[in-house]
């Protein structure tokens, strides 16, 4: 029976809506305008955020860490552990860090041997690389074997490029070479796969990780460390980390004579892309900020509108609800009827708002669906307060008014 009564009250609500059409249209319009505003604001936030992301990914920031005199050839007294620290700190944004180029060198006191067990002194340096320098940088040619690919130098497996002269002396018959720092024990050598030759001085270029792990018992000199940040969004975060270990440049060419927290005087630079990133980013960020401020106000406005609109629409119906009560309709049923009417009007307005939004912007409103849901809850909360006030109407007042 209760179910049938509820169904009847729903029908009563629909009848009321249809028979007071101008008022109903006004209420639907209010909900529609609010929904449309929320859709537009939310969509603008989505669009602006997307454009910001696009801008960020369009700019590549080249980060260079060099010595205090900015001369690439001057060795830095920088321990390899900084590389590890930075790698760990940048973990969250590691996907956006590309082209890490580190060169480490130790210039003397290495020995090498092939399978003939005769150790020879290396005339040049052992250099750890994460990349293959081009001819312009090293001023000599590389001849790489078929098994070489770009990932080898980033790999932790020991592999190296040896001087062509060394291989010629040995008759080209070896594919591995053993290296040992002369202060190490005789059996502490590291065996490297030979992946190519070069025509330069007597240096052996090996993969950076294997060089660090096995051969850096003494001080390591790094004289070049650079990487590209392919999403400029993280410039701030990278700068924050680098600032901890290195000194931030002030003005190009000027050097701040102060030490970082590790008491070491290094500096880093960001090579900014052409055009000023801030000029593009700041206005978009400002727009997003304004929209994000407007958004909660719109939700508060929704509560207020729900409250006022329902109040206005039920204000003149107090007598009607009192009569309902006097005829035996329970408070809950009166609330149900009045709330159902408002719910129907709000839903209609909301759907129309979404439809208009789609028609104008051709955007999928699903993107902002949860915000529409928040609006709906806000609006209906306002409505509920107002309707509750009606459901709790003092029926005696109707009688007293007649007295």
């Amino acid at each position, binding site marked *: *029976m*209760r179910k*049938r*009564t509820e169904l*009847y009250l729903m029908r*009563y609500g629909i*009848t*009321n809506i249809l*028979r*007071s059409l101008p008022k109903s249209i006004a209420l639907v319009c209010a909900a529609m305008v609010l929904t449309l505003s929320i859709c537009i604001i939310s969509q603008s936030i989505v669009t602006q955020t997307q454009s910001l992301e696009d801008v960020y990914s369009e700019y590549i920031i080249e980060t260079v860490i060099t010595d205090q005199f900015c001369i690439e050839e001057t060795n830095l007294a920088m321990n390899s552990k900084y590389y590890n620290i930075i790698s760990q700190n940048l973990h969250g944004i590691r996907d956006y860090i590309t082209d890490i180029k580190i060169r480490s060198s130790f210039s003397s006191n290495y020995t090498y041997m092939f399978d003939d067990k005769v150790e020879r002194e290396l005339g040049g340096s052992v250099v750890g690389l994460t990349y293959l320098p081009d001819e312009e940088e090293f001023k000599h040619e590389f001849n790489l074997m078929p098994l070489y690919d770009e990932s080898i130098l980033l790999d932790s497996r020991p592999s190296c490029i040896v001087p062509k002269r060394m291989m010629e002396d040995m008759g080209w018959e070896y594919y591995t070479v053993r290296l040992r720092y002369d202060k190490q024990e005789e059996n502490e050598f590291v065996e490297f796969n030979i992946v190519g030759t070069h025509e330069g001085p007597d240096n052996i270029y090996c993969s950076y990780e294997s060089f660090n792990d096995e051969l850096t018992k003494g001080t390591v000199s790094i004289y070049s460390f650079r990487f590209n940040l392919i999403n400029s969004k993280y410039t701030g975060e990278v700068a924050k980390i680098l600032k901890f270990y290195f000194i931030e440049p002030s003005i190009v060419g000027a050097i701040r004579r102060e030490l970082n927290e590790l008491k070491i005087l290094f500096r880093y630079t960001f090579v900014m892309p052409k055009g000023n990133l801030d000029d593009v980013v700041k206005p978009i960020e400002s727009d997003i900020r304004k929209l994000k401020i407007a958004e909660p106000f719109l939700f508060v406005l929704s509560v207020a509108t729900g409250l006022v609109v329902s109040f206005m629409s039920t204000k003149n119906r107090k*007598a*009607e609800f009192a*009569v309902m*009560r*006097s*005829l*035996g*309709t*329970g408070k809950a049923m009166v609330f149900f009827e009045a709330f159902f009417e408002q719910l129907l009007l709000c839903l209609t307005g909301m759907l129309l708002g979404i439809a208009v939004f789609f028609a104008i912007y051709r955007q999928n409103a699903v993107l902002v669906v949860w915000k529409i849901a928040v609006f709906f809850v806000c609006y209906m909360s306002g409505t509920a307060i107002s309707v509750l006030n009606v459901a709790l109407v003092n*029926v*005696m007042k*109707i*009688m*007293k008014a*007649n*007295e």
Partner: protein
Amino acid sequence: MEKILEVKNAVYEYRNKYQTVKAVNDFSFEFERGKLYAVVGKSGCGKTTLLAMLAGLDVPKEGSVVYKGKDTKEMNLDKYRRDDVAVIYQDYNLFPLLTAIENVMYPLHLKGIKDKEAKVTAAKMMDSVGLDSAFHKRLPSMLSGGEQQRVAIARALAAKADVILADEPTGNLDSENGKNIIGILKKLAHEEGYCVIVVTHDSEISADADEVLSMRDGKLVTKQEDKVN
């Protein structure tokens, strides 16, 4: 005659921040089936408050209203209003956006009666107060005062309640319509066995009533015995 409704030492107070007024003060009376009662008195004497208590809109602060031996304080008042009493108001209080027949069908729907059945019953009730099918689909705004009051009576009858309470039912009507309404109420009491209680200033109703209850300052001051029948 069967006693159906009894008021026992009922007290009802209205309070505001300045004073407390006893609108009904130690009122006792027994109402019977098949009688038309007129409650008379000056404005503010507590007639309507008494009617409101009888209608189950509230319960007395002290004393009791007893329907068929059961105190309304112990009853579900919504159910009591739905099934046991029906109220007719001076200004009709019809639902403005429902047609005449839909207004009469309202209490039937509340009871969970199916639409088709409710429609047949409502049409009968409207017929019984002299409103034929031509009036069925009219909104209250398209009816005269007398017609609206008849619809209100039909709505009260549709509820199948034992007690019909009327608050100044002729107050907004011309004398001819007033007479018609009085005639209907009288017929309901005497021919159909309803207990009809009318709060009125109308002397014609008082004259036609089986008993007249005169109120002053919330108290029953006179009790006139049945003069008709």
